[in-house]
């Protein structure tokens, strides 16, 4: 699959502190890539280097086939940016902000007007298009920023904590818009603290810690990869002996909690098959069967802790 972002050895040094330390990764066309990390890990610095706002001290970033340092205008023409802090011009109206963006991206006036009208409708601000942005709430400003980033129909969208501190309505609207955009083919690079958001939205996530990449994978794979021993919770419609499950193929241990059994195993697939066979042999019915995987929060904490130690 084609890479729309190819970061190689990206490094940023501030004084004696290395904010981003030789990180390399690819973002594939059409995916939502989550970029996670604790505060100060280097997420925003990386995003700023990728978007050409600050130059890297070492390494390269190729965005949609254009090196961000040698061909910044060509690269920027094809992506949109929603930064961490809302940065619309507060002395201008929403309409004026969008028209300014239209001009800065070289859109013909009629096209810019059409896009502005459509986008304001999409983010629910059409009725307040002639109001100065200084009177907008934080959620409204963030929705406007998203509209501004989409004025030129970018192939790639960078978002830095787009829902941070927003009300539920604005958060849901933005996440829903991101899903729709991705469905229509827009690649999304999403920096977030919100694990649940990343878990639900992203095809792959990259975890950065102290300026270094700790892991890159699909959320589900990351969650399972951090534990070699997995837990399976099962309950049957009849009582079974305490030692009956411990002897099954692949089972490392079995303990009872209420009416359920918690089974530990290295190979979940083999154990589930054994449990099904066991229930058939015993003439019992499996009432519930759950594989207990760590949450992305746990995976994140584990991975960032490992990278730190």
């Amino acid at each position, binding site marked *: 699959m084609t890479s729309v972002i190819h970061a190689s050895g990206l490094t940023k040094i501030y004084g004696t502190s290395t904010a981003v330390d030789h990180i390399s990764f690819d973002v594939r066309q059409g995916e939502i890539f989550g970029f996670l990390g604790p505060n100060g890990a280097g997420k925003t610095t990386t995003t*700023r280097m990728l*978007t*050409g*706002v*600050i*130059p890297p001290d070492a390494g390269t970033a190729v965005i949609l086939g254009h090196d961000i340092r040698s061909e*910044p*205008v*060509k690269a*920027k*023409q094809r992506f949109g*940016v929603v*930064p961490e*802090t*809302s*940065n*619309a*011009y*507060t*002395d*201008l109206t929403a309409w*004026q902000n969008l028209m*300014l*963006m239209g*001009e*800065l*991206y*070289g859109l013909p006036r009629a096209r810019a007007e059409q896009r502005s009208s459509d986008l304001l409708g999409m983010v629910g601000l059409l009725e307040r298009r002639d109001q100065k942005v200084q009177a907008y709430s934080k959620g409204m400003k963030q929705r406007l920023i998203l509209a*501004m980033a989409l004025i030129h129909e970018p192939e790639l969208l960078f978002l830095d904590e787009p829902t941070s501190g927003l009300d539920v309505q604005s958060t849901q609207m933005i996440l829903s818009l991101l899903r729709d955009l991705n469905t229509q083919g827009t690649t999304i690079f999403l920096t977030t603290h919100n694990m649940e958001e990343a878990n639900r939205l992203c095809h792959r996530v990259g975890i950065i810690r102290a300026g270094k990449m700790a892991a890159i994978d699909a959320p589900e794979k990351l969650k399972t990869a951090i534990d070699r021993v997995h837990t399976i919770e099962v309950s049957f419609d009849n009582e079974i002996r305490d030692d009956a499950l411990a002897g099954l193929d692949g089972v490392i241990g079995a303990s009872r909690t209420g009416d359920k059994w918690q089974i530990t195993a290295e190979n979940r697939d083999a154990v589930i098959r054994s449990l099904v066979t066991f229930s058939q042999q015993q003439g019992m019915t499996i009432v519930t069967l759950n594989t207990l995987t760590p949450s992305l929060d746990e995976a994140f904490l584990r991975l960032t802790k490992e990278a730190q130690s």
Partner: protein
Amino acid sequence: MNLTGISEQVRRAWAIAKKDIRIYYFKGPVLIFGVFMPLFMFLAFLMGSRQLPLSFLISGLVGMTLFFTATAVSPAIFPWEGQARTLERLASCPVAVETIVLGDMIASTLFGIGITVITVVVGLALGLLLIHGITLIVAILLAACCFSAIGMLLAVPPTNVPSNIMMLSSLIKFPLVFISGIFLPLEQMPSWGLALAGLSPLSYFTDLVRYSFTGDHFFPVWIDIAALVVFTLVFTVGTMYLHKRTMPKRM
């Protein structure tokens, strides 16, 4: 960058200039400052030196007006936008740093010309005769570009605190006014004063304005024009180069 790319960047610079005019220049206090600051300096000097002819003083007033207005707002735009994070918005758009600088320069050039035209009209209303109109137009256009480049040069230090830049700006602008033949004719200056005057683009502009209104001049007219062209080119190239270097430090 090819020609199409350059013309596209110039169009985008115009968009930035329109934004600047709307946000920073079309404000009551800015317009009032632009008109009243040079006017009150002029009146103060008029009361203190009544022996100088009105034509000389009006020429000085025109020089001061253009200089102060073209450099009034532009030094603070980068710090303001850095503080509001709107500069980061511009930096992530497909515009070169030179385009942002050019946009700010266009805005301050137009503001300077607009306010200066008012001063010229006031001078004409007071009975001054305009002898060399075309020279005056050329001088105002050239000097407005030159002074707006100076304004952008003053914004080069990568601070996002506007008051720091405005203090630096005042420190440089006021001494320039006193060495540029506005209050004291160049003919009456000592040799060291003349040497300093030669380093100030404002001297050449004031000389051209005086020539336009009175027919008198200290330097040959072609020297005045050539000096303004050279200063404009050097300051414009210099400010674009320096801003390109300091821009990342503002982010």
